[in-house]
């Protein structure tokens, strides 16, 4: 009975296969190779920066003792293998190649294992497309709490299962596999086109969703990447290109780049700082303010080395060590002249593939304070280190600019300007005025000048101590006159006024950082945080 029922439908299929070449014209395209190329482009060019940062938020070493914290967890081996594969994203095109190969092979095997006929062949691409959709949905969450082993781990497990399944099928039924590179013989042009249509539409939907609902994900990751590479000009260019997209990680990277290039008192307010909420979750599953993405770096570049070490340690407690945390901890240890500690972190990093360049560069600095101080990045940070100790609980936000408002003495002009800008950012005018004295008689940077003019209302005569303010006075008067109609409901009008007054401090003072949020690309309401 079963033989009969098995053989009966074979006849029309054979006829169809025989007829297919007649129907097929030159328009037939090799779908699997096209799918491979598209996924490669997605995984390397489009989403490569996200996977690259995922790698930095991960750690893998062949030394299983170092990886004990992962191996002891549920699915430890899977996470371990997944993290190993993620390492290839040191070079996104290489990592993307592996991912595309796995997704394509998986799709092919799904078709084979499910014995999909040509009509149903679009179905074989759905698991891979679903995976891409899930990755896009999670956005920053794919690496935020260092659950990075699943990025490759899940497709890897799926691939292994499919391989075993297909081997079993091959062993018992000898069913021929459809072509992997070429065009399957049983496909008609319509079936071929349908497959392409499904793939293209699904990928367009995935990318569309990303651009619509998670537009900040790739931007933040690119900024972090540039931050690690110390590409300050690149950060400024990218942040200004997305000036209306407001989030704290971006503001932190932007501020760091300005501090490192001495422009913080000129251009800080050229991006919007109202901080729309991000789709990001902590280990507890609750919505998170994403501070883990920028606090360690913000403290480090703000000159608060110990606070940066502390922040790194807090994150290591929660997520285990990551490449990013170990690198930052190494730099902090070098800045603090904790040579043995720096050597400890470097010893671990030396066991991580592809981290040789970092280890070589910073390994040379161990016990060489002259080399530490000669490093451009570290030398800039040294200028803003505090002169005196205090405790972090006296340390006022903004964390990303890292200046302690309790401290009124700095070791450099950079420290003074950073401090003044932070006072303006936090809109703490009394503290701003307290720090102005060293600039008396000079022409302050533009943001400082605008701050002085605003303070003039409550402190008449203060502007007389500085040069160049007269030229900016008319601009302030015009601004106040023009924005008067909007003052009664500032949050409602903040977004629409931003393009007109981008970079102008009085705009920020009256309209910025008011928890105003643009309605649109994020479905979540504004962050619960206030001015910070």
């Amino acid at each position, binding site marked *: 009975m079963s033989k009969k029922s098995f053989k009966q439908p074979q006849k029309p299929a054979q006829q169809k296969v025989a007829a297919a070449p007649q129907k097929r014209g030159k328009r037939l395209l090799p779908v699997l190779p096209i799918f491979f190329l598209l996924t490669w482009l997605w995984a390397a060019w489009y989403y490569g920066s996200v996977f690259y940062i995922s790698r930095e938020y991960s750690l893998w070493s062949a*030394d299983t*003792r*170092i990886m004990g*914290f992962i191996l*002891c*967890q*549920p699915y430890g081996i899977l996470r371990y293998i997944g993290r190993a594969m993620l390492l290839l994203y040191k070079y996104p095109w290489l990592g993307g190649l592996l991912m595309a190969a796995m997704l394509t092979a998986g799709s092919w095997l799904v078709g084979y294992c499910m014995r999909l006929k040509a009509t149903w062949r679009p179905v074989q691409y759905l698991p891979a497309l679903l995976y891409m959709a899930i990755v896009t949905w999670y956005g920053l969450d794919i690496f935020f709490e260092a659950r990075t082993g699943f990025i490759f781990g899940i497709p890897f497990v799926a691939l292994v299962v499919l391989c075993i399944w297909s081997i079993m099928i091959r062993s018992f039924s000898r069913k021929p596999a459809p072509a992997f590179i070429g065009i399957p013989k049983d496909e008609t042009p319509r079936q071929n086109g349908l497959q392409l249509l499904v793939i293209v539409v699904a990928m367009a939907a995935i990318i569309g969703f990303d651009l619509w609902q998670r537009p900040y994900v790739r931007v933040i990751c690119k900024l972090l990447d540039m931050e690690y590479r110390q590409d300050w000009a690149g950060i400024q260019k990218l942040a200004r290109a997305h000036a209306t997209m407001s989030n704290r990680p971006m503001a932190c990277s932007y501020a760091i780049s300005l501090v490192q290039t001495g422009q913080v008192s000129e251009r800080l307010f050229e991006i919007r700082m109202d901080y729309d909420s991000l789709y990001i979750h902590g*280990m*507890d*599953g609750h919505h998170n303010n994403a501070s883990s993405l920028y606090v360690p770096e913000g403290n480090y570049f703000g000159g*608060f080395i*110990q*606070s940066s*070490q*502390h922040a790194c*340690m*807090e994150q*290591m*407690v*929660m997520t285990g*060590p990551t490449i990013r945390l170990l690198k930052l901890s190494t730099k902090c240890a070098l800045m603090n002249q*904790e040579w*043995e*500690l720096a*050597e*400890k972190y470097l*010893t*671990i990093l030396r066991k991580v593939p592809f981290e040789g360049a970092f280890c070589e560069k910073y390994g040379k600095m161990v016990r060489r304070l002259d080399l530490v101080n000669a490093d451009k990045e570290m030398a800039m940070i040294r200028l803003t*280190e*505090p*002169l*005196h*100790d*205090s*405790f*972090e*609980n006296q*340390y006022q936000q903004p964390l990303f600019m890292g200046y*302690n408002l309790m401290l009124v003495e700095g070791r450099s002009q950079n420290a003074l300007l950073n401090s003044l800008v932070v006072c303006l950012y936090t809109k703490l005018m009394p503290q701003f005025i307290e720090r102005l004295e060293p600039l008396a008689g000079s022409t302050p940077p533009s943001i400082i000048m605008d701050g002085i003019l605003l303070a003039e209302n409550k402190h008449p005569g203060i502007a007389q101590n500085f040069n160049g303010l007269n030229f900016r006075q008319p601009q302030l008067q015009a601004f106040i006159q023009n924005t008067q109609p909007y003052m009664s409901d500032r949050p409602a009008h903040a977004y629409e006024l931003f393009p007109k007054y981008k970079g102008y401090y009085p705009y920020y003072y009256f309209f910025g950082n008011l928890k105003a949020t643009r309605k649109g690309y994020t479905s979540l309401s504004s962050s619960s945080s206030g001015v910070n």
Partner: protein
Amino acid sequence: MRYTLLYIYIIAASTLLLSGCKPKAEVPAQFAEADTEAAIYPDYKDIVVPPNIAPLNFLVKDSIATAFVARLHGSKSEIIAASSANDAIRMDSTQWRALLTENKGGDISVDIYAKRPDGWVHFKPHKISVAEEPIDAFLSYRLIEPGYELYRQLGIYQRNLTTFEEVPVYENNREYNDGENHCVNCHNYRMGSTESMVFHVRSNHGGTIIVQDGKAHKIQLKDSTIITSGVYPSWHPTENLLAFSTNKTGQAFHLYHPEKLEVMDEKSDLLLYDVTKNEVSHIIRTSDDLETFPCWSPDGRTLYYCSAKRNYLLDPTVPDTLITQQLLLKFDSLRYNLMSIPFDPKTRSFGQPRMEVNAAAESKSIAVPRVSPDGRYVLYTRGDYGQFHIWHKSSDLWVKDLQSGDCYPLTEANSPDVDSFHSWSSNSRWFVFSSRRMDGNYTRPFIAYFDKDGKAHKPFVIPQEDPEWNILLLKSYNVPELSRDAVRISEKDLRQCIYETEGENAVYKPNPTAIVVLDGMTGASPRKPADGTTGASPKKPE
């Protein structure tokens, strides 16, 4: 059959290949003499070791050498071990045990040879002395990251010092679970025996876990008169009693200071808990002074503790809600003295506190007193200020000789970095302590020999199968406690007790002999300390 042969070939070839990677363990026939000693990690040179310690495997640091050979020889036997450039010299444990046994009370000479491009060199030898007395075989500790506020995966572990075996006594959630997350701390045993054990669980499933006769139960030391719950514990040596401190503790992180954080008590008192009756009472309850780190003497007739005067640091016009802020601003002026209070185990009554070491008078501060099991010495840490010396670089180990009354530093054991929390071996000849000397951040347990003359010898870090583990491990060894025997309860049973029981509330029953000195109100007891001899507040009680 064909495949069987193939497998045999593969295994044989792999064995040959692997054995070929490791240099031959034989002393080179020809070598040049170096005029220095070899640089080894960890520093196991010229130390005194117990005869039951695990092999002291080590790394040789020589950047141009490709292989090393070590020869350890005593009066009768020797061990020859070899390693490649990036591997450790590892001793065979059976040979090591025999070498130590044969050389008990004597010295072992260590000769190291390095294969450099121009041939083998022989470094100047160093020695390892083997003491007659063994160390308690088990060391318990908590493994945690240093310097943080959040917590996630941590646990109490037990290491067999005679081997490399480490087992978890109890671990909290490996996979993060917000509803189950909790901290474990302050494990303690009675006189080096795990027959009686205590530790605390904080946050979810919180309580004090007491293990006796292999059974665990959870208690809650809570009362309106108790500041928080039990914190630093000490088992009474003969009675089924526990002394606890109860502390309201906070920590703050430095911005620009060689010491990374400061842990301070805003309030603290001492408690006595009767395990059998499930009753808790105060030993000392003062509103102005800080008492902490209780420790019983081995005869159970004296309780040592640390005490600091707090109020002279506070501005009386500032509200109480800002006490922590005020103390924080004067964190380096808070100093603890070593105190003791007599105790009669029969009547459960306390006498008058007395000053053992007035450290504050020398602008110093004392923490963690531990009396040697023979009752002769009190080992404590002395630093410039405060009580959380595990983060104070000025912290050193000191002893008070209770016979002569002399106090002196254990110079050979101390380092420029933190040397703090310590535990005696039950024969009083060894102690283990935490030190940050390796990298300034991650504490490692060091073992030091304490001879009959009351002198400590150069300490050494506990041996690891792979000595590089001391570098790779990103956790600190916290609260090292020695014990003669292994913990007698399984992790599963502890987990069951922690997760499935709420904890029995201890009954508060005032002790009429307690010292109670409260500001503006009458305490449970009319007693007050003797003037001028206590660390308690000079303010008169009502």
